[in-house]
C-alpha cells in the first residue's frame, strides 16, 4: 500500500514536470515561422485589427484601428503608399501646388465611382469637408482640417466682421489674405485684446457658413483647397480618415444607420457585406472601384480581438493570417524576433518624457540636460527588445532625406558636471547628490505594465549615475491626461506621440502652443519662427534643413527627454504578399494577395 502511494506520487511529479516543460519550451524551436502555415482557400485575408471600431463612418472613428478598416472601404484624394506610407494618387490622379504651399488643386479620376455606381465628383469632396467640419456633426477629428481656410472658424461657430458703413470685410492683420474671424460667442469676445475689441465695436458680425470654407469644386472633377497657412505636406494629410470621401446619397437617405451592411455605400477597393460588433467586419471586392482590376483579394475580414495572447493563439493555429501593430507580447519577443513572419520596422511615433519646465529644479536647462545625459538609451532599447534609441525628437529612419538631429546620448560624467554647474555641489565644487532636491520630482505615467518598466529603468539609471532617487507615480489614463495638460506634476511626465501624417512637422507641432498637447510649459519664439519659415519653403531639401534647425533648437532647450522610437512589431504569414511593415501600419489592402505557391513565400 505504501509503495503504491509512492509510485503514484512519482507519476504525478513526472506528469507535472512534463506539463510544465511543454508549456515553457518554445514549440517553434528550429522553425522558420510561428505555428501553422496553411494558406486559406482562395484569395481571402483574415486580419486582426484591434478592438471594435468606434464607427464605420470615417469621419467619426478617431483611431488607427479604425483608419486601418477605412482604407478598405473608403478612398480619399490620396492614399498611403504600401511601403513608405507617403501620399500616392488615389481619387486624385495628380495635383498642382501654388501660392507658396497655400493653394492645392486636385485633378480627380473621371472614372471613379461609388459602390452603388454613381460617379464620385468634386462636389462629393466639398460635401465631405463641409459635413466633417459642421459643429453640429461634432466629430473629434475635425481639427485635422483646420489648415483649410475658415475651417476652424466654421467648426467653432465663429463670425466674420463686416464694416457697418462700407460693407467690406475686415481683414486679419496677421494674415492679410484672410478675413478677420472673431468668436461667435459674446462672452468669448469679451476676452479679446482691447485693441481688437475696439476694432470690431459697432461692426456687423456675420456667422461663418459651410460655404465659406476654403474648398471649392472648379468643375466636376477638379477641386481646389485654399489653406489658412502654408502646408507643404497637405497631400499627405489628405490620406487621413477625416478626408476620405463619404456618400451624400446614403447619408441623407439613411441618417446614422448608413454604415450598416445593406445601406452601406463606399468608395474603396472593398464593399462592406458583414458587420458583427465586437466580432468581425468583412468586405468583398467592390466591382465599381476605379482600379478594381488591380484588386487581388476576394474577401477581407477584420477581427476584433483585444487580448494579445488570444491574438497570438489565433495566429499560431492559422485561424488568422496577419495582426496589427504592437501585437506580439513583450515576453514572447525573444522567441519571435528571429522568425521570418515577425514584422518589425520603426514607427511614425516617439516615446519621451515631458519636463515641467515651469517648476524648479527642471526650469534650469542644465538640470534637464543632465537628466537626459544620465539615461543609457542603448541599454533601454536592448531592454525593450524591438525599439531604437532616440536622442533627437523625430523618429529615425522613416523620412527619407530628413537629417535627424542627434546629440550626445549617454555621458554620466558630463551629467554630474552640469548638475554641479547648476548649483548642486559641495564646498570643493564637485557634484553633491545630497544637495539635489530629489524628493520634489517624480516621473508621472499612465498605468500600464510597459510604462512602469520603462520608468523603473530610468529611475535606476539616475540612481546609479546621479545618486538620486526620484518617485514614480501612476494614474489611470484619462485622469493622467488632465494632470499632464494642467502641469500638475513636478519633474517628468510620460508622453508618446503618434504622427498624424508622414512629415516631421507632426512632431514639431506639439510645441507651437502651450497647453493642449504641450504639457511642458515651454514655448520658444525662435523655434516657432523656424517652423513657420520651413513651411513656406517649396523646395523639400531646404525645408527639411530648416526643420532640422528647429529640431536642433528643441534638443538644445531640452523641454523633453527623448527615449526611443517604437517599432511596429506584428506578425504576417509568409503566404500573405503585398503587406509591408510601413511606419504607420496602415495598409493599402488592394495590393495584398495570398500566394499559394510555397516556393514564392517570404
Amino acid at each position, binding site marked *: 500500500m505504501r509503495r503504491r502511494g509512492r509510485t503514484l506520487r512519482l507519476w504525478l511529479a513526472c506528469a507535472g514536470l512534463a506539463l510544465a516543460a*511543454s*508549456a515553457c519550451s518554445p*514549440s517553434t524551436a528550429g522553425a522558420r515561422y510561428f*505555428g*501553422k502555415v496553411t494558406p486559406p482557400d482562395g484569395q481571402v485575408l483574415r486580419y486582426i485589427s484591434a*478592438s*471594435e471600431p*468606434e*464607427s*464605420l*463612418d470615417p469621419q*467619426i472613428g*478617431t483611431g488607427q484601428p479604425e483608419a486601418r478598416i477605412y482604407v478598405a472601404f473608403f478612398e480619399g484624394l490620396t492614399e498611403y503608399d504600401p511601403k513608405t506610407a507617403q501620399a500616392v494618387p488615389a481619387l486624385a490622379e495628380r495635383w498642382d501646388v501654388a501660392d507658396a504651399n497655400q493653394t492645392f488643386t486636385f485633378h480627380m479620376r473621371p472614372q471613379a465611382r461609388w459602390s452603388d455606381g454613381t460617379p464620385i465628383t468634386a462636389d462629393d469632396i466639398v460635401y465631405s469637408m463641409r459635413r466633417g467640419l459642421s*459643429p*453640429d456633426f*461634432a*466629430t*473629434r477629428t*475635425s*481639427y485635422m482640417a*483646420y489648415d483649410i481656410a475658415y475651417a*476652424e472658424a466654421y*467648426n*467653432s*461657430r465663429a463670425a466674420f466682421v463686416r464694416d457697418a458703413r462700407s460693407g467690406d470685410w475686415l481683414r486679419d492683420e496677421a494674415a492679410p489674405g484672410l478675413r478677420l474671424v472673431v468668436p461667435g460667442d459674446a462672452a468669448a469676445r469679451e476676452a479679446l485684446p482691447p485693441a481688437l475689441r475696439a476694432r470690431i465695436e459697432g461692426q456687423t458680425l456675420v456667422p461663418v457658413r459651410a460655404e465659406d470654407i476654403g474648398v471649392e469644386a472648379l468643375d466636376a472633377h477638379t477641386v481646389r483647397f485654399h489653406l489658412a497657412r502654408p502646408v507643404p505636406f497637405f497631400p499627405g494629410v489628405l490620406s487621413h480618415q477625416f478626408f476620405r470621401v463619404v456618400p451624400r446619397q446614403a447619408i441623407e437617405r439613411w441618417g*446614422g*444607420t448608413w*454604415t*450598416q451592411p445593406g445601406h452601406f455605400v463606399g468608395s474603396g477597393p472593398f464593399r462592406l457585406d458583414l458587420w*458583427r*460588433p*465586437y*466580432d468581425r467586419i468583412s468586405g468583398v471586392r467592390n466591382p465599381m472601384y476605379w482600379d478594381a482590376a488591380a484588386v487581388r483579394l476576394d474577401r477581407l475580414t477584420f*477581427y*476584433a*480581438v*483585444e*487580448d494579445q*495572447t*488570444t491574438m497570438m*493563439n*489565433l495566429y*499560431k*493555429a492559422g*485561424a488568422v493570417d496577419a495582426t496589427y501593430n504592437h501585437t506580439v507580447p513583450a515576453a514572447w519577443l525573444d522567441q519571435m524576433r528571429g522568425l521570418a513572419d515577425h514584422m518589425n520596422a520603426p514607427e511614425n511615433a516617439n516615446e519621451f518624457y515631458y519636463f515641467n519646465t515651469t517648476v524648479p529644479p527642471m526650469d534650469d536647462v542644465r538640470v534637464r540636460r543632465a537628466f537626459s545625459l544620465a539615461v543609457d538609451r542603448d541599454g533601454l532599447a536592448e531592454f525593450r527588445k524591438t525599439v531604437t534609441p532616440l536622442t533627437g525628437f523625430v523618429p529615425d529612419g522613416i523620412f527619407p532625406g530628413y537629417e535627424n538631429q542627434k546629440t550626445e546620448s549617454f555621458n554620466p560624467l558630463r551629467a554630474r558636471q552640469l548638475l554641479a554647474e547648476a548649483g548642486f555641489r559641495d564646498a570643493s565644487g564637485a557634484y553633491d547628490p545630497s544637495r539635489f532636491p530629489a524628493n520634489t520630482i517624480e516621473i508621472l505615467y499612465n498605468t500600464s505594465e510597459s510604462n512602469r518598466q520603462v520608468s523603473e529603468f530610468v529611475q535606476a539609471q539616475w540612481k546609479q549615475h546621479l545618486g538620486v532617487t526620484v518617485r514614480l507615480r501612476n494614474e*489611470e*489614463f*484619462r*485622469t493622467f*491626461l*488632465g494632470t499632464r*495638460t494642467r502641469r500638475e506634476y513636478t519633474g517628468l511626465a510620460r508622453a*508618446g*506621440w*503618434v504622427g498624424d501624417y508622414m512629415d516631421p512637422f507632426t512632431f514639431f507641432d506639439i510645441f507651437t502652443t502651450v*497647453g*493642449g*498637447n504641450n504639457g511642458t510649459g515651454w514655448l520658444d519664439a525662435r523655434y516657432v519662427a523656424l517652423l513657420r519659415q520651413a513651411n513656406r519653403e517649396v523646395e523639400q531639401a531646404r525645408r527639411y534643413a530648416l526643420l532640422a534647425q528647429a529640431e536642433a533648437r528643441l534638443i538644445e532647450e531640452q523641454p523633453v527627454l527623448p527615449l526611443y522610437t517604437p517599432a511596429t512589431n506584428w506578425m504576417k504569414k509568409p503566404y500573405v504578399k503585398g503587406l509591408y511593415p510601413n511606419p504607420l501600419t496602415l495598409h493599402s489592402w488592394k495590393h495584398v494577395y495570398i500566394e499559394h505557391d510555397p516556393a514564392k513565400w517570404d
Partner: protein
Amino acid sequence: MLTFALRRLLTTIPMVLVVVSLTWGLIRLAPGNFYSGERALPPAVERNLREKYGLDQPWYVQYGRMLGNTLRGDFGSSLKYPGETVNEILANAVPVSATLGLLAYALALVVGVTAGTLAATRQNSAVDHASMAAALVGISVPNFVLGPTLVLWLALTWYWLPPAMWDGWWSPNLIMPVLTLSAVYMAYIARLTRAGMLEVLRSNYIRTARAKGLPARTVLIRHAMRGGLLPVVSFSGPAVALLLTGTVVVEKIFALPGLGNYFINANLNRDEPLIIGIVAFTAIVVLVFNLLVDLAYGLIDPRVRY
C-alpha cells in the same frame, strides 16, 4: 403566490432606479471624459461634442434625462460607438453571453448534481473521494489558468479545436469556453449537493420512506433530492444571473462578443449610456432570478408557503 410575485416585480423598479442613480453618481466622480485621448482636443471641438451630447446642461437635467431613459427602457446611443444604440448593443451581446452562460451552467448542473449525489450516497468511498478531490481542484484553479491550459493543449498542440472567436450558437468554438466557465460552478454544485444530500439522507422522513419499503431509487429521487438540492437552487439564482450578464475573463481569453467585454470597455471609455444600460440590465436580471429562486422554493419545498 401570484400577488407575491407581482409585489416583488413592482419593487424591482425603484431598486433598479436606485442602482442606476448610484452608478450615475460614480461615473461623475471618475475623472476624464469619453472623448479624452492621448491627443488633446481643441476647445472648439470639445465644446461641439459637449453640446451635441447635452453635457453642457446642469447636472439635474442630465440626471433627469438618464432616469427618464431608464424608465422608458431606451438608453440612447453609445458615446464610444455613436452608430449603435445601447439597446442594439445589448441585443447583440446578451445572446452571446447567455448562450455561453446557460450552456456552462447546464453542464455544471448535470455533472455537479450527479457527482454530488453519487458522493453522498457512497460517503467515504473511492467515488466520494475522487469527485470531491476533483471539485477541490475545480474551485482552486482560476479560469484564467484553466482556459489557456485547455487552449495550449487542444488548440495549439493538437490543433483539435479553434483557439478562440465566436462562430454561432452551435460550434466547436464554444467547447473550451463552456468547459472553462463551468469548471468552478461544477465543483461548487457538486460540493453543495453532497452536503445537502448527506444532511437529508440522515433525516427522519427519509428513514420513514425507506421503512415504507419504497425502492431506493424513488427515495433518492422523489424524496431526498427535493430537500437536498435546496442549497443548489438558492445558489443558482445569482449564479445564472451573473453568467447571463457576461463573464469578462472567459470572453477575453476566447475573444467572444459578449456583454463582459462591453462592460469593462464602457467603464474605461466613460461611455455613460452604455454603462447605465448594462448596469440596469444586470440589476433587472439579478432581481428577477432571485424572485425565480424564491418561487422555486415554494415548488420544491413543501414547508414553504406564500
